[in-house]
């Protein structure tokens, strides 16, 4: 619980003295009536109002009003926890706006299983209160963290409404295992697997309900989470009601208009007709296939999207029972037609304290219902390569008109590239040619893909300070995270991906995670200089998950053999679970308020490994240098602290793979065949039993982190800085790697082999250039440098040959990124382009780098990597009187991207433009100058397509105006609130030629584009 803290500002003392001077000349006492609110216009209840230099003081009432007597012109100071104190001159009416104080907020930092004062912190932890004013387009909570925290990189996957993001804390510690941080919401640790319709566990939380994020980065902070701490921990605390507060209703709403930023510059109908004339001739079949239309396919699939968002909150307290209830509704339309995300969230928090505040309860229930309508994102790519001379809804070429019986009827009225059908159905003489580009409009309209998801997170925190032995607290957390998502997918019989039979059905994923944590915490001061804080606890977690899917095709009624029958009806069921049982403890010891020691240990038991148990320790030291005698006189330095930390953390989260059963990797068993077409009936019905590979030796990856940090503040924290340097060594990497033949039932399997290293520097700067009553300006900046290097792969590869990253594939089996000792993970492994003397790339000619006289795969080399070296974030917020103005910038340096759009679409070979399937493929306007003619690997997987995609992005710009007393009449104080306008994803400065340089895995391949959005919003309190 928060408590009142006194904050002393020597500068304010000066004002106070001045005020005293002034008060000598003006004795007349007046009634000062005032109203206190926060920057968002919310009334502040219970703020302390004091006439400086006197005993006269009061607190604000439920509506933020106060009345007191003071000499006219006297200084009145208004203070409230979490806000910066403000001093105003006494006048008959005063209006006071308190500004959030980040440093005050950070006074208490939530860490695992408890909280500490920021000043006592020994580890690398960043606390962040979301910027309520300049937040841009926020649908998922992670959007609020992007660019805000040093060492944390957040990259949204793409522009899908309600979509997920990649979150990396300090570069990630794993090669093949998960690099996602652990997310803890109100004490409940989430698993990282979403269900249908939920991109990640964060998407079930309404961003408006979030009070704070705490990002634990180094091992001394995360080791308390043991086997899940290696990739950092993000602790989310949601908002609560306030004790002694009157019921208060507030509303926040916004309307967003989103548009595509730019599209790929491909040929229009006439340009393409000319191209075919040039390269194939007017007598060619290709020329006869050309249509007569001029279709801008990209224009047909995008739209201006309108989204809106509403939140209503009721907060207050009944006696000892503070409560907060909120309801939110989001409807986010995607710019790709047919994509839409609707979400309803509800949250209830009750935080009563009983028995003289000895027993405090914090009860949270959060519910969410979402409805996602997915567009077939393949339409993005199809729209760029679909022939622009074809009419979307008709056959216009003589070639097609001459094909007997060819109409658009079997294609839902759409143009599709035709080929002879083999359905044995006279009504379907032609079908869609599956090797040709699909009609993107048909892809969107002939597929109906939607998901309904429900999620519930409930947690009960019970904290009891033992009567008569108040130094000991017992704490119990019970948590449940239950979600269910069902995705229905219907392809009509005209849908090009499931032509004729169509496909219908659904998939449902249910997960149920239960958690019980209990710990006891003991605080004790010995003498005046020793302070102990010891905690020990136990945790039990069960992660249970099931999946059912059921899909079938429907044979059209015109089929002579089985009209209206089922086609390939498939039912699949899957269930899995795992347990974590842990014992953990932490000791904090502070000597003379200056020297701090923290030691933690966690003994984790996981059902995923045969040898269940492993121990994860950490130690950290901190030295508050500014408390030393020799620093007392250096008044400019308001804070100076050195931190040192060491610890070991683990990683056990493997990519969910039903085929491998990652929860049961150590248990010998057999896989039973699934589906209807995988029988081999040489005996019985042909069901297959495959001996499943298993490994009793698997264990955790271990990451050892060394961290050194320095925090300092100058001029009463007007300027603050935090610098951390770290070295993270991961050993026993969980690698999916080749195994000696005949010694296992699979040729590759999970093994603990290989080491990796991350080292980096993080800098966080806070600066308040202007701080006056009317004008307030803060600038926050963060800088992150991370270098990743693989230090050992022996076992994964014996002859030192690079190991492919199989998650990025070009074509069927061409890999782009490889891992090799001495290089960052997932580096591009490409041929080196040869150029002629004019500097033009020579088609299909690459450098024979090993000089053996021939071009072989051994001539590839490591050239750059997708992860940036340096990322930065800068946000500025200015408030002048009732106006506020803010912006956020984010930059990334030396992140490289393989431009697969150029590599894949610039092939000008007439046989590629008009392929053997009698279908034309459009080309980018610049393709002719590229002049490429093959898809040979030596023409495609070449360094010329790897580009530096460094960028500077402006995430959002906001202008807002706050008001009070709107429509005030009679006794009603009127509306207080704020109106604002925001532009989100405003601009990008980059040298990269593709549409967007920000690509998670460095492989630019026609992603759903991120839109630019214009947001108009209003918040008010009733």
């Amino acid at each position, binding site marked *: 619980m928060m408590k009142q803290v006194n904050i002393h500002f020597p500068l304010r003392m000066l004002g106070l003295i001045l005020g005293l001077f002034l008060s000598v000349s003006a004795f007349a006492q007046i009634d000062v009536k005032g109203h206190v609110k926060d920057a968002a216009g919310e009334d502040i209840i219970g703020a302390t109002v004091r006439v400086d230099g006197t005993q006269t003081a009061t607190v604000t009432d439920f509506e933020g009003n106060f009345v007191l007597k003071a000499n006219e012109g006297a200084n009145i100071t208004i203070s409230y926890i979490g806000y910066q104190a403000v001093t105003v001159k006494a006048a008959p009416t005063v209006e006071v706006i308190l500004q959030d104080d980040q440093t005050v907020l950070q006074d208490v930092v939530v860490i695992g299983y408890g909280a500490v004062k920021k000043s006592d912190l020994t580890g690398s932890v960043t606390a962040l209160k979301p910027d309520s004013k300049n937040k841009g387009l926020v649908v998922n909570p992670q959007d609020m963290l992007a660019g805000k925290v040093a060492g944390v990189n957040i990259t949204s996957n793409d522009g899908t409404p309600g979509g997920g993001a990649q979150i990396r804390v300090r570069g990630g510690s794993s090669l093949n295992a998960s690099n996602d941080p652990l997310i803890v919401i109100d004490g409940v640790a989430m698993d990282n697997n979403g269900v249908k319709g939920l991109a990640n566990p964060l998407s079930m939380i309404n961003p408006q309900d979030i009070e704070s994020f705490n990002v634990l980065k180094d091992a001394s902070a995360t080791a308390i989470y043991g086997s899940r701490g290696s990739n950092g921990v993000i602790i989310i605390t949601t908002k609560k009601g306030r004790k002694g507060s009157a019921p208060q209703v507030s509303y926040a709403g916004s309307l967003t208009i989103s548009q595509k930023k730019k599209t790929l510059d491909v040929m229009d109908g006439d340009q393409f007709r000319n191209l075919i004339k040039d390269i194939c001739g007017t007598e060619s079949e290709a020329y006869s296939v050309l249509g007569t239309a001029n279709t801008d396919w990209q224009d047909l699939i995008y739209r201006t999207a309108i989204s809106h968002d509403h939140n209503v909150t009721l907060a207050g307290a009944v006696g000892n029972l503070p409560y907060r209830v909120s309801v939110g509704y989001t409807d986010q339309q995607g710019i790709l037609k047919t994509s839409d995300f609707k979400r309803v969230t509800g949250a209830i928090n009750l935080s009563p304290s009983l028995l003289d505040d000895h027993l405090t309860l914090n009860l949270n229930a959060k519910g969410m219902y979402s409805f996602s309508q997915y567009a077939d994102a393949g339409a993005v790519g199809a729209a760029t390569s679909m022939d622009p001379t074809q009419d979307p809804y008709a056959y216009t070429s003589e070639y097609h008109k001459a094909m007997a019986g060819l109409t658009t009827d079997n294609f839902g009225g759409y143009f599709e590239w035709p080929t002879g059908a083999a359905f044995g159905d006279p009504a379907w003489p032609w079908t869609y040619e599956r090797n040709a580009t699909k009609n993107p409009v048909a892809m969107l309209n002939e597929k109906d893909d939607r998901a309904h998801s429900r999620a519930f997170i409930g947690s009960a925190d019970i904290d009891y300070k033992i009567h008569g032995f108040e130094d000991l607290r017992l704490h119990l957390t019970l948590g449940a995270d239950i979600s269910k998502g069902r995705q229905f997918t219907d392809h009509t019989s005209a849908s090009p991906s499931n032509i004729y039979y169509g496909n219908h059905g659904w998939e449902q994923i249910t997960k149920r995670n239960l958690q019980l944590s209990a710990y006891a915490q003991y605080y004790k001061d010995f003498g005046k200089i020793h302070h102990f804080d010891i905690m020990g606890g136990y945790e039990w977690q069960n992660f249970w998950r099931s999946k059912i899917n059921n899909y079938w095709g429907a044979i059209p009624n015109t089929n002579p053999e089985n009209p209206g029958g089922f086609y390939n009806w498939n039912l699949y069921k899957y269930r899995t*679970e795992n347990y974590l049982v842990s014992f953990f403890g932490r000791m904090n010891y502070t000597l003379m308020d200056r020297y701090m020691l923290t030691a933690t240990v966690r003994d984790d038991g996981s059902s995923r490994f045969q040898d269940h148990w492993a121990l994860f320790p950490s130690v950290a030291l901190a030295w508050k240098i500014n408390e030393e005698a020799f620093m007392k006189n250096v008044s400019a330095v308001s804070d100076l602290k050195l931190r040192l930390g060491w610890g070991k953390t683990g990683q056990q989260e493997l990519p969910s793979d039903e085929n491998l059963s990652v929860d049961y990797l150590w248990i010998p068993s057999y896989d039973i*065949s699934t589906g209807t*077409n995988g029988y081999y009936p040489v005996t019985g019905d042909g069901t*297959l039993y495959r001996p499943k590979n298993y490994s009793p030796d698997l264990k955790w990856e271990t990451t050892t982190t060394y961290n050194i940090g320095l925090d300092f503040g100058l001029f009463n924290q007007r300027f603050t800085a935090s610098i951390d340097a770290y070295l993270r060594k991961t050993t026993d990497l969980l690698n999916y790697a080749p195994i000696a033949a005949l010694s296992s039932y699979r040729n590759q399997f999970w093994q603990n082999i290989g080491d990796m290293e991350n080292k980096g520097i993080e800098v966080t700067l806070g600066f308040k250039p202007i701080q006056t009553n009317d004008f307030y300006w803060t600038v926050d900046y963060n800088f992150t440098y991370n270098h990743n290097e693989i230090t050992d792969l022996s076992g994964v590869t014996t002859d030192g040959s690079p190991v492919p990253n199989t998650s990025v594939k070009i074509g069927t089996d061409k890999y782009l990124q490889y891992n090799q000792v001495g290089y960052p993970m997932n580096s591009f492994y490409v041929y080196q382009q040869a150029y002629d003397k004019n500097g033009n790339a020579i088609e299909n000619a690459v450098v024979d780098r090993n000089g053996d006289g021939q071009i072989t795969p051994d001539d590839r080399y490591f050239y750059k990597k997708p992860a940036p070296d340096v990322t930065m974030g800068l946000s500025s917020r200015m408030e002048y009187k009732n106006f506020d103005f803010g912006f956020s910038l984010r930059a990334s340096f030396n992140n490289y991207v393989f431009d697969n759009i150029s590599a894949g679409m610039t092939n000008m070979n007439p046989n590629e433009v008009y392929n053997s399937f009698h279908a034309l493929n459009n080309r980018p306007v610049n393709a002719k100058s590229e002049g490429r003619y093959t898809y040979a690997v030596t023409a495609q997987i070449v360094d010329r397509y790897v580009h530096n995609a460094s960028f500077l992005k402006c995430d959002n710009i906001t202008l807002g105006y706050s008001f009070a007393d709107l429509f005030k009449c009679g006794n009603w104080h009127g509306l207080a609130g704020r109106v604002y306008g925001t532009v989100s994803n405003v601009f990008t400065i980059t040298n990269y030629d593709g549409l967007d340089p920000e690509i998670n895995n460095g492989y630019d391949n026609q992603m759903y584009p991120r839109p630019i959005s214009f947001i108009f919003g209003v918040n008010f309190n009733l």
Partner: protein
Amino acid sequence: MKRFIQNIIPAAALTLLFGMTSCTKDLDVTPIDPNLSLEVNYDGLFNKCYGNMALQGNGGANGDCDIDGLDGGTTGFIRQMWNSNELTTDEAICSWGDDGIQQFDYNSYDASHPMLNGYFNRLTTGISYCNEYLRVASERDAQKTAEIRFLRALDYYLLMDAFGGVPFSETLATPSYKTRPEIYAWIESELKAIEPAMADARAKNSSDFMYGRADKAAVWMLLMRLYFNAEVYTGTAQWEKAAEYAKKVIDSSYQLNTTGANGWSAYQMLFMGDNGESSAANECIFAVLCDGKKTTSWGTSLFLMASTYDTDMDATADDPGGNNGTSEKWAGNRARYDLVHKFFPNDNAPTDAQGYQMKVAAGDDRALFFSKGHTLRNELGYFGDFKDGYGVAKFINYKSTGAVVKGSDAQFPDTDFFFFRLAEAYLTYAEATARLNGDQTTPEGTELINALRTRANTETKTVYTLSQILDEWSREFYFEGRRRVDLIRHGKFGGSSYKWMWKGGAKEGRSFSANLNIFAIPADQVKGEIKQNLGYE
């Protein structure tokens, strides 16, 4: 309230204590996945050992894959046996961009070749499945145990044929290394040991429960192949033994398919959607099963027909636009010049023939080539498109029960792949006896070759030389996944005695070292006792 608290705290503490001790037991999980079984199903494991030759994994064509590191369809047993034995020779060339294709086409494969790694792993994984069956079920059914040992010997044979010395183990264990002669000897003794327990040799079709399983004739066929190539494998020729086992098969109840149906030739019927049901089944000694509904794969007969067709090729004049009878046409593999040349020694093939028309011009039912819009010579080699060389219209999903009857599914074929067919015994007998007869066929050998040629409606001769026999192997068995072995046996693969277009990557052919007769052991398998082959270290 205070009393309530005073009661609840100890109660909670007790519950917790109880919880802690019992909850650590939760870590000893038992799988709840309904797709997993802790108990074996003997029939299911038996099916898996066989199914490894046809299926990529445990769930059909679009299900999971047993082998990691390659696309599921690409790991197909037949597909990689085919690629390694056809693309590397004078019969086939492919222009796909997949990593590995160019190296096959140009004989520049090495230890990091992805498809050879896939083939190696498909075979060794198959051996592990068989080892598992023998571990848990060897005492149950003598005939089934013998069949699994046969499958294991077959996997080892193919592994030895492709990779020379091999990793070896009869249980799930770190393998030892057997040189080519050592594994040869093991396969020989293993096959002889199981022969008595196998089912009797008997021609059958898919209505017979033994169809798709190996019988004594399959053991003889494998022994025959082993002896036939013994000189390559061990340095000592075994022509008599090869002829002996060929004769056993020839004298069994298996029969050549000599009568066509509904306009389809007798030869074409071997490669059609109902080859397991029609009279063609009598020629099949060991079938790899496919079924458009129940047994689907991207790597078996679908690969053979889809990779060789584009949308311009038609299998029958009666169904324009029907192509190969499936919806799949991938336009990849086509004939090298040298293959067509075997049928048209004067290079006078008609230039606008459909697959069903070429046989007339060739005077040979086996010339199932498509030339319309294609060039005869592969001018551009790997970099050429599908029209650069003739199309091969051999494998299709039409049924011989009518002119235009297609298989049961529009996408996946019913066409079984005849892993061993009787004609192989005919040619083996003819060649083995010719080797013992001054490299000229014996009258009995001539008769057998003529039986095949008569079936193909082409003229016969009274005697055949060794090189004519080698050409006959190509005419009879082209695109069936065995050419490399025949060329090696005749000394015409590695080395300079025979060149074909784009051999070694040069347009007119360039000889390469005979070291390349054996492929490289995959780099990540060269550890412990396992040695790399000569020339790849």
